[in-house]
């Protein structure tokens, strides 16, 4: 840098007294000693000292000063100009202005913080303080002394904390939660009775609808006269005990639900971070309400079902009692009729003429028919009431059994059976057997007038997952117009002289199949046979 070495021996402090020629020598001596002591103290304290001869523009810098800013002794030219050169250009006008103001007598002390270039070329913060020491007789400033200190560390820390504070301020201003700082107010007994708003953030205004200007410095009872004392009590306790709390409650004056996290930053105060949970609460509430409605509805429904079940059970009991009494009491007289006709025949048969014997025959026949009707009715009523014991039933073997049973003792034309492979179904075996007996005996009955009965039993294609079984015959068939009557109770499409029967067989088939969740239907034409279909739930395939 090519500066001239600082000459310490020219220190104004050291040499100054020699210039104060108007003072007595002992006084000058005392002053010089006191200045030396001061310099020593300051140097020990670590501050650099400077002295500026305003008249000559000479500057003296202490060894400590030079050391502080990294300059070897004699490295800085001892002039005010070289000092100017060391000051950061941005700071220079301010510092010079401050110096001038002081010299002009505007300030009791010169004090400035500015950046000073060190030997390595970097700038460090300097805190400079100084004072004008003397004026000449005409009032012109003579010299100024001061101390400088490197305050870079403190300055950086200040800046960092200012930045930190700024970050927190930003967080405070932009957070998604409302924030409020409050001071609790207690009554005579020391119980919280109100609180004062000290600070709120922007979100507070948004979430409560209250303006910061309207609340700050005021108490909650002033701002919200309808405030629930719950809030004051709970939050007041946080301020008094220092224990944080979480609340989730309704605010009556604001008409909203808030979830609040409250803590105590200092005794007597509490801070709240809160969110509006009204929508969530209302959702939960409406869910709860609809659940309650659902439960009530359910209970009502259950009650109705129970009532209906009771009614149904009662009806069933009556039906059962009726059928029980039919079973016991209606059969007996019929049995007696047939029995005593038989005994009469045995006893007086020889004495009767043909006509008399024919009458007896008719009575016996009618009684038998009556008996069959009763039995069929009872059976029909029982198929409706019997419990289902569902198992997997192999139709093939069941049909074989049924064929043998139906043929047993039957008179009629030769029968040609065409039985194609049959599936397995889920059914009550004995009920299904009863249905098949009805179907097969039907086929045998209505083919009796044929020269040769052809009865076909097989599985028809189905597209709804059920097993469709058909029984086809080449019998007398039926008029398709009356197909609806085919499966009705006591409905007959032929006279009983032509074909005996009570007309209950197919009604029974229908009832049994429907109890299995299946259905029945028929196709046919007069003189061209009939085909009866039964759809039943299929048994699941093995291994699937």
């Amino acid at each position, binding site marked *: 840098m090519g500066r001239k070495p600082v000459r310490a021996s020219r220190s104004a402090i050291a040499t100054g007294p020699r210039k104060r020629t108007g003072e007595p020598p002992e006084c000058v001596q005392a002053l010089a000693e006191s200045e030396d002591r001061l310099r020593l103290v300051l140097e020990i304290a670590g501050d650099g000292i400077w002295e500026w001869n305003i008249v000559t523009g000479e500057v003296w810098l202490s060894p400590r000063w030079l050391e502080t800013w990294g300059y070897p002794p004699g490295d800085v030219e001892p002039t005010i100009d070289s000092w100017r050169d060391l000051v950061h250009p941005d700071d220079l006008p301010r510092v010079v202005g401050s110096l001038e103001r002081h010299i002009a007598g505007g300030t009791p002390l010169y004090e400035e913080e500015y950046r000073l270039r060190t030997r390595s070329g970097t700038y460090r913060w300097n805190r400079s303080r100084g004072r004008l020491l003397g004026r000449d007789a005409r009032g012109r400033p003579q010299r100024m002394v001061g101390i400088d200190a490197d305050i870079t560390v403190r300055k950086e820390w200040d800046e960092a904390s200012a930045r930190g504070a700024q970050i927190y301020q930003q967080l405070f201003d932009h957070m998604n939660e409302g924030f409020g700082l409050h001071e609790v107010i207690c009554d005579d007994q020391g119980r919280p009775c109100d609180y004062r708003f000290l600070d709120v953030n922007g979100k507070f205004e948004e979430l409560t609808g209250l303006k910061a200007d309207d609340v700050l410095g005021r108490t909650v009872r002033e701002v919200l006269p309808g405030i629930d004392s719950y809030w004051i009590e709970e939050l007041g306790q946080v301020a008094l005990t220092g224990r944080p709390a979480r609340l989730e409650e309704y605010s009556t004056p604001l008409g909203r639900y808030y979830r609040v996290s409250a803590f105590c930053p200092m005794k007597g105060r509490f801070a709240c971070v809160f969110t509006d949970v009204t929508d969530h609460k209302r959702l939960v509430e409406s869910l709860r309400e609809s659940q309650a409605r659902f439960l009530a509805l359910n209970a009502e429904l259950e009650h109705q079902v129970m009532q209906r079940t009771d009614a149904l059970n009662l009806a069933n009991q009556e039906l059962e009692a009726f059928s*029980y009494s039919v079973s*016991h*009491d209606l*059969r*007996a007289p*019929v*049995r007696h009729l047939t*029995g*005593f006709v038989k005994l009469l025949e045995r006893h007086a048969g020889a004495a009767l003429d043909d006509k008399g014997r024919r009458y007896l025959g008719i009575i016996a026949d009618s009684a038998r028919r009556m008996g069959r009707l009763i039995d069929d009715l009872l059976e029909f009523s029982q198929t409706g009431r019997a419990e289902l014991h569902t198992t997997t039933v192999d139709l093939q073997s069941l049909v074989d059994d049924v064929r043998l049973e139906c043929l047993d003792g039957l008179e009629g034309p030769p029968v040609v059976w065409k039985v194609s492979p049959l599936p397995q179904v889920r059914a009550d075996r004995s009920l299904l057997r009863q249905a098949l007996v009805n179907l097969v005996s039907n086929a045998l009955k209505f083919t009796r007038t044929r020269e040769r009965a052809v009865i076909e039993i097989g599985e028809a294609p189905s597209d709804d997952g059920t097993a469709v079984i058909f029984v086809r015959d080449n019998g007398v068939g039926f008029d398709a117009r009356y197909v609806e009557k085919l499966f009705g109770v006591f409905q007959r499409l032929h006279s009983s002289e032509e074909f005996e029967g009570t007309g209950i067989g197919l009604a029974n088939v229908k009832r049994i199949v429907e109890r299995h969740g299946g259905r029945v239907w028929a196709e046919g034409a007069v003189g061209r046979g009939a085909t009866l279909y039964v759809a039943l739930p299929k048994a699941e395939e093995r291994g699937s």
Partner: protein
Amino acid sequence: MKELGTILYAEDDERDIELTMEALDEHNLANSMKVVRDGEEALDYLYCRGSYEGRVGEDPMLVLLDIKMPKVDGMQVLRRIKSDARLKTIPVVVLTSSSEERDLAESYQLGVNAYVVKPVDFENFVKAVKEIGLFWMLLNEPPRQYRRQEASS
């Protein structure tokens, strides 16, 4: 041919009684019939009380029971017989008009030996009654305990 014991026949319907007797008569079984008209009388007979106080002779070899009877019905009689240590080895056949599932189920629950529905048709009725008589009186072997009792009395 073994010595025939008594058949106790509990039946309230006199026409049924007549028909049953007629049916059994063909096999000379009618003579060994003791007919009672209701459950109470049947129990009196079995326990030798009431009008049967001092009855002599052994217990019946077979009890034929109708279900629907006045006062004490067939089920109650069946229950008493089957829960009595002395009587429970006597074969009991329910002979009734009803083929109701619950009667059947209850009878077997109580330990009935056979359950026969009276056929409406007379021919079948005769056949049924005859078969009951033949089976229980002639073919069936009663348990030893019963025979010992029979021998000692």
